[in-house]
């Protein structure tokens, strides 16, 4: 081939230097008789779409930071509760409200199990572990007012929140996508009817739906997933419909129609692969919304039943003793904030990676 890849630039540069000094000889002035490679050109082989998207994604720092945090939190959500001997529901009332104490670090003065208490006659530093004579007991994040380990509860809460959020987002995607694609593709009367239904659904406040649902179903993970599902699919369906309206008059769809393709073939095998980018992005954006909604429901008492916990219920519990034992509310809040921020960063990175035109030229 005449065109060398840039990768071998060193080699071709060397050759280039040679040809710079190259003095043409008479024998060079002959026609190249062999023209076989004229009509085939391979110089347009570019990277595949996913490969290029991947490169763009890992080049975006904020998205990578988000991705690392999500990975870390996920690993801790899976492994964290098993790292010490406590379980999330085990109560030990004699060891309640102990401040964080971590072996090794305790000698530095941080995480040594002491906390500052405000009493009527000023501030007082207390250390529950010494007071209760528990030299070998360590609650890494402290214990709550039932004597449960906050480390274990935070990570199992994160686990519950993640499962609910991801499940809700995926189910939203399936429902919203199908609804939006069909509504957009068929248009006309179908579209009008489907869009009016959507508007009516959208008009009912989420809290009303959830409260009504809880009258019928037992509170628990499934109920929350259903509640989220019933309210969150609409934004996905709007995106799917908008993408469909944009794509359905494109020439490749017309080409499919002139070849005699049926509606389902066009919707699911021609158009769907083309909107996968915005769909994934929307799913990533809807996960933090779901986490937050779940936390909100738990906070107002409509969420996960005790003794199970989620980030929301932990924050709610911690909130009660926030003034006396602030360390109880900090871990779930940090985890939740990090999760929401990270998912937003990743979603943002994905949007740019999957739709490079958005980026400023």
């Amino acid at each position: 081939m005449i065109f060398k890849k840039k990768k071998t630039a060193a080699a071709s540069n060397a050759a280039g230097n040679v040809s710079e000094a190259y003095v043409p000889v008479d024998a060079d002035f002959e026609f190249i008789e062999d023209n076989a490679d004229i009509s085939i050109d391979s110089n347009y082989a570019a990277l595949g779409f996913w490969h290029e998207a991947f490169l763009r994604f890992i080049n975006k720092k904020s998205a990578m930071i988000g991705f690392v945090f999500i990975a870390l939190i996920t690993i801790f959500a899976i492994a964290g509760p098993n790292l010490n001997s406590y379980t999330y529901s085990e109560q030990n009332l004699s060891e309640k409200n102990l401040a964080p104490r971590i072996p090794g670090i305790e000698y530095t003065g941080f995480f040594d199990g002491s906390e500052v208490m405000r009493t009527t006659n000023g501030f007082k530093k207390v250390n529950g572990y010494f007071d209760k004579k528990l030299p070998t007991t360590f609650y890494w994040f402290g214990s709550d007012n039932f004597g449960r380990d906050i480390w274990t509860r935070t990570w199992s809460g994160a686990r519950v929140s993640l499962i609910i959020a991801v499940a809700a987002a995926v189910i939203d995607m399936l429902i919203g996508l199908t609804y939006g694609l069909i509504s957009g593709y068929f248009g006309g009367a179908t579209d009008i009817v489907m869009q009016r239904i959507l508007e009516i659904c959208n008009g009912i406040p989420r809290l009303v739906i959830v409260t009504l649902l809880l009258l019928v179903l037992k509170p628990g993970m499934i109920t929350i997933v259903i509640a989220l599902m019933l309210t969150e699919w609409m934004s996905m369906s709007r995106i799917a419909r908008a993408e469909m309206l944009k794509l359905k008059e494109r020439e490749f769809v017309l080409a499919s129609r002139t070849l005699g393709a049926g509606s389902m073939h066009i919707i699911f095998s021609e158009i769907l692969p083309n909107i996968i980018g915005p769909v994934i992005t929307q799913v990533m954006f809807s996960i933090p919304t779901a986490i937050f909604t779940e936390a909100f429901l738990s906070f107002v008492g409509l969420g996960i039943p005790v003794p199970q916990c989620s980030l929301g219920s932990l924050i709610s519990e911690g909130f009660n003793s926030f003034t006396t034992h602030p360390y109880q509310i900090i871990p779930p809040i940090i985890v939740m904030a990090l999760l929401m921020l990270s998912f937003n960063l990743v979603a943002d990175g994905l949007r740019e990676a999957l739709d490079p035109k958005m980026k400023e030229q």
Partner: protein
Amino acid sequence: MENKKILEINNLDITFTTTAGEVHAIRGIDIDLEKGETVAIVGESGSGKSVTMRAVMGILAKNARVNSGTVKFHYTHEDGSDAEVDILTKDKKWIRQHINGKRIAMVFQDPMTSLDPTMPIGKQIMEGMIKHFKISKAEAWERALKLLNEVGITNAEKRIRHYPHQLSGGMRQRVVIAIALSCNPDLLICDEPTTALDVNIQAKIIELIKRVQKERGISVIYITHDLGVVAKVADYVDVMYAGKIVEKGNVNEIFYEPAHPYTWGLLSAMPDLDTDDDRLYTIPGSPPNLLYEPEGDAFAPRNSYALKIDRLKEPPMFEISKTHSAATWLLDPRAPKFEIPVEIRNRIERMKSVAKLEGSDE
């Protein structure tokens, strides 16, 4: 004032950094333009013709890197003193204040995207004048009306209040030209000004640009791939291929004595109304992707007249006449004898005979 150089581009070399790698888009270009002249830069998409003009306007994209070269622009200050700047060394703000719109104006391909849809056209024409000349609104309004008349918009008093979407495609392009002319530029760059338009409107717009150029004595650079347009407007032609100029000359030399195989292909690819050959002579293959640096002559893989030397060394510009030169080894004295393709020969004969006929009419 004749023979006064207005723009000199010397050895311009630009690289773009993309996710896929470095694209060496411009590989050493020289263009000269004198006052009142028209130069057409001809080439296919991706040949680098638009990038070159963006460099002249100082509006290169952020991922562009200028490796070498100068873009010297000569102009006259308000007080009559001459000045010369190298645009590449100036920052964007300076260029915006002193060059863009005021001394070099650009007409883009699609009038709809270069007009602001939320503003009446009159206001868009006045904007530049108020900014650059510091004149009053009323005066700018008068000048805008005059300009609209100049670019052939009838009923200008009414049209001046219209929004772009209320005008037809041809009208919009006239408005774009009016905006470009509003600050009395010395140089007008037209980037495919007629490709988005219908044939009969195309002809009118080109006639308009020609007329304006003659009346105002400004220089024009056309960027186009349409040789029909080139034939009508250009004094000089630069043929670009893969970021290089492969043939340059005055318009008659390029059309009647083309020397580069790529120019042959371009000429014959567009059938004239008298073509009755069964097949068009074409250039095989497609233009190179400059992500991969070509070795030797970039055109060699598509050239059925390629010599062995083409794959080893890039051809220099061979001078054919004072104004005409081409970068092909076929012009080297050591090159073997060759015949230019019969389709081209017939075509040139035919053009010459038509041209003679037309000439004798005058």
